[in-house]
């Protein structure tokens, strides 16, 4: 199974990279962009067939090491 983890700075936490890219887009006349947030994506190929167990396992990985929940939120998508 493939687990896709997306990690972003929490809502309300200023994202310096997103802000810089937003500014660059504006400079290049790409108007109408309200906000840019930059995160990271981690793709895990895991040896697990059961969705619930996989979710449990990856959540634990996120809480332990993949994300720093002081500043970051994460989402997990599973695909067989």
């Amino acid at each position: 199974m493939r687990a896709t983890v997306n990690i972003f700075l929490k809502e309300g936490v200023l994202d310096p990279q997103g802000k810089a890219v937003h500014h660059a887009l504006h400079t290049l006349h790409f108007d109408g962009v309200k906000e840019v947030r930059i995160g990271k994506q981690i793709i895990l190929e895991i040896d697990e067939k059961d969705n619930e167990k996989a979710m449990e396992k990856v959540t634990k990985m996120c809480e332990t090491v993949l994300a720093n929940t002081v500043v970051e939120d994460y989402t997990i998508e599973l695909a067989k």
Partner: protein
Amino acid sequence: MIAIPFFPGTNCERDTEHAVRKLGFEPKVVWHKETALPSGTKAVIVPGGFSYGDYLRSGAIARFSPIMKAVKEFADNGGMVLGICNGFQILLESGLLPGAMKRNENLHFISSHEYVKVINNNNSFLSETNIGELIQMPIAHAEGNYFCDEKTLKELHENTQIILKYADKNGNEKNLNGSIENIAGICNKTKNVFGLMPHPERACESVLGSSDGTKILGSFLKKAIS
């Protein structure tokens, strides 16, 4: 004995060793795979650098090294621990200090001599300084933008855990990297674990531009030995 754990990518362990020795104490650089601190360890200094290439997040992988388990135990038993730069980031990731680091607000790697102002001195790190005193030290980091939630910030204030803030040469606070309230250094509630982004070990000889680091590093080491 002052233990200096180092990880793949750490690059300040020799400077730290040199400074500790110069101040008259006995340093011991310890590889991260060690599971115990050297016998007779009186304090731990987690040095700066780029442990594990800053992969994932600064300090995120180093915190799981075997030696960090020993450092955590040492700190939990009241042992004195100081994290400098990447060492500070490792202590944040390991939960020994509250909060987290983000990329500098201007996204630059900032490498310069800066002043920090003493905010609280009721701790063994800054007890030989006065509140408001300026200390000049080099900084060299890309992720020193300190962040914590409001509840944590309130606790930091209540327990006098904010110890250093960035300032200009006149003592006016300045926001160097986006840090909440210009924070450059903090300690834990029990005041035995300290973290700061500036490098006191690189400011221990006037030929290097400043010897201000000797005062705070020396006080930390003296308290640890006593």
